[in-house]
């Protein structure tokens, strides 16, 4: 559904026109897309830009949605999700006067992306490694779980980092892992996420990490129902279940979106790939007053130390 392109209150003509196309799961998935949406709203309110968004409903629609925005000659068109990578490359070539940005952009070939395309990537495996370590340190059953959305390379990055993190601190721990499916719908099926998580909790896991978008809402619901712990993803998901969200592997998609808009407004937009990891605060974990009752200070200290090791290159985190 649309968000009307309305200017920030009080502002006269918008300083730029920004379009954004969501990934499966859509606005208010309280996860990945939601974070992107927050970044865009902040840009609208603070930078005085006009925004237009589209939530595509199926595969064939996605490219058409980007193209629709590009053809309106907007200043910046953002695709939220790796799935837009190839489409963005092609549209950037076709519409050289429009700036494009891709969140989770994955180059489709050896060539450099066109100069008007900014690819924003995250080192999710690094953040996942840290929450994996937190899980490994916090589990009482020596069994933890992972629920992914669709089984694709991007989500396998989360899984790989997480498993490595668990094993790093607790080599004997068992890690269950499951994926919700084979279609993009796997990111938007909370009923399925709930069942997968319940299967893991009932199998002995006491902490489950999800990288499943809206499907994760079911994972969190399962944790709430079982009184077990869960690790959120992308944004701080603490408030989804204050009883149970141990921490979240945050991914600063909102910052990336906001910065891309700010660059355009300031006239300093440039293409190229940027990869944000632990070192850049592009990914990280949540430890604050909210979850202090779930996350012991020791564990937080260990996690910080591990993060420092990763940043310093002392630990090599696998991405597959």
């Amino acid at each position, binding site marked *: 559904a649309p968000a009307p392109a309305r200017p920030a209150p009080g502002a006269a003509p918008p300083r730029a026109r920004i379009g954004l196309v969501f990934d499966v799961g859509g*606005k208010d998935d309280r996860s990945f897309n939601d974070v992107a949406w927050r970044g865009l709203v902040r840009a609208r309110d603070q930078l005085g830009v006009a925004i237009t968004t589209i939530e595509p409903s199926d595969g064939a629609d996605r490219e058409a949605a980007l193209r629709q925005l590009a053809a309106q000659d907007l200043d910046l068109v953002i695709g939220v999700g790796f799935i837009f990578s190839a489409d963005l490359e092609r549209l950037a070539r076709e519409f050289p006067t429009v700036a494009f940005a891709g969140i989770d952009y994955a180059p489709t070939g050896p060539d450099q992306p066109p100069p008007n395309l900014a690819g924003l990537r995250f080192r999710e495996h690094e953040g996942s490694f840290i929450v994996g370590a937190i899980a490994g340190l916090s589990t009482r059953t020596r069994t933890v779980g992972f629920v992914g959305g669709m089984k694709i390379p991007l989500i396998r990055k989360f899984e790989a980092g997480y498993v490595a993190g668990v094993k790093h601190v607790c080599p004997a721990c068992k890690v269950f892992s499951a994926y919700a499916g084979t279609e993009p719908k796997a990111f*938007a099926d909370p009923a399925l996420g709930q069942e997968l998580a319940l299967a893991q909790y009932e199998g002995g896991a006491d902490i489950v990490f999800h990288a499943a978008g809206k499907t994760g809402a079911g994972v969190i*619901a399962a944790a709430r129902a079982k009184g077990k712990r869960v690790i959120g993803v992308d944004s701080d998901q603490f408030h989804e279940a204050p009883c149970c969200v141990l921490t979240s592997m945050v991914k600063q998609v909102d910052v990336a979106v906001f910065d891309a808009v700010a660059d355009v407004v300031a006239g300093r937009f440039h293409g190229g790939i940027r990869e944000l990891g632990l070192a850049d605060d592009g990914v990280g974990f949540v430890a604050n007053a909210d979850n202090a009752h779930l996350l012991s200070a020791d564990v937080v200290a260990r996690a910080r130390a591990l993060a420092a090791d990763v940043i310093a290159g002392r630990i090599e985190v696998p991405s597959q």
Partner: protein
Amino acid sequence: MSGFVASLITLGFLAQVLRIAIPYVLAALGGTLSERAGVIDLALEAKLLMGAFAAAVLGYETGSIAIGIAGAAAAGVAVAAIQAFWSVRLGADQVVTGIALNLGAFGFTRYLLGVRYGQGANSPRFDGVGTGVLTNPISWIAAALVALVVVGLGQTRLGLRVRAVGERPDAVAAAGVSVARVRWLAVLIGGALAGVGGAQLSLPVDGFVAEASGGRGYVALAAVIMSGWRPGRAALWCLAFGLADAVQYRMQTHGVGLPAELTRLLPYVLALVLLAAWPRRVAPPRALGQPD
């Protein structure tokens, strides 16, 4: 492997099978009623989807689970009413009508979400029924409805008429019974059942997401066909599908067997193998799909 086997003999597993099966069971019961009356029910998907939507939205707006469930039934009835009007009154092609309703429900739920909440994919979160089976009123409703439909179809006046009307509507008319009225009733009641089944797709997960039905209506229809249009057996087939799903989750969890992309396909492979292995089973109701 042993962890996998052990995980199958737990109460949690049983609860999971039931939880997964409930939408299938209610949809299949509804589909059985409609099809026994001679109306092909390809619109189960739409009824589940609208039921899930209504339960979540009404549950959120009123804060009442009961109103949510009642709303789900009403939404199923609303879809069924269009279906009945088209199939019974206009004599429209029933397969096509069903597919159109599925397409329409898919768009309509997203449209309403957009109009009401400014987003096309999700309804706002609220506290639903949780994951317990015994604490979930839909479980009890489903159990009661299985018994009611089995007894109702086999041993009541309306049930007799429904069974007759799906075979020889002309004979029913000649006996002085209104064929249209019986069909309307069967389709509407079936719609209510499938709608309540939809509630199970949103209330336990505290909200509605677009396409929440996810093809379950078609699987339920497969159960109806494989049961030979008998409600008790259809419910059993649905339990079997729930079982296949649950086993599949556990296989993934314990890393048993195939990669995730393939274990997911277990229920579909099961259905196809059964269809191929048991060629030409029970004949469908003779008047199925005939306008009158």
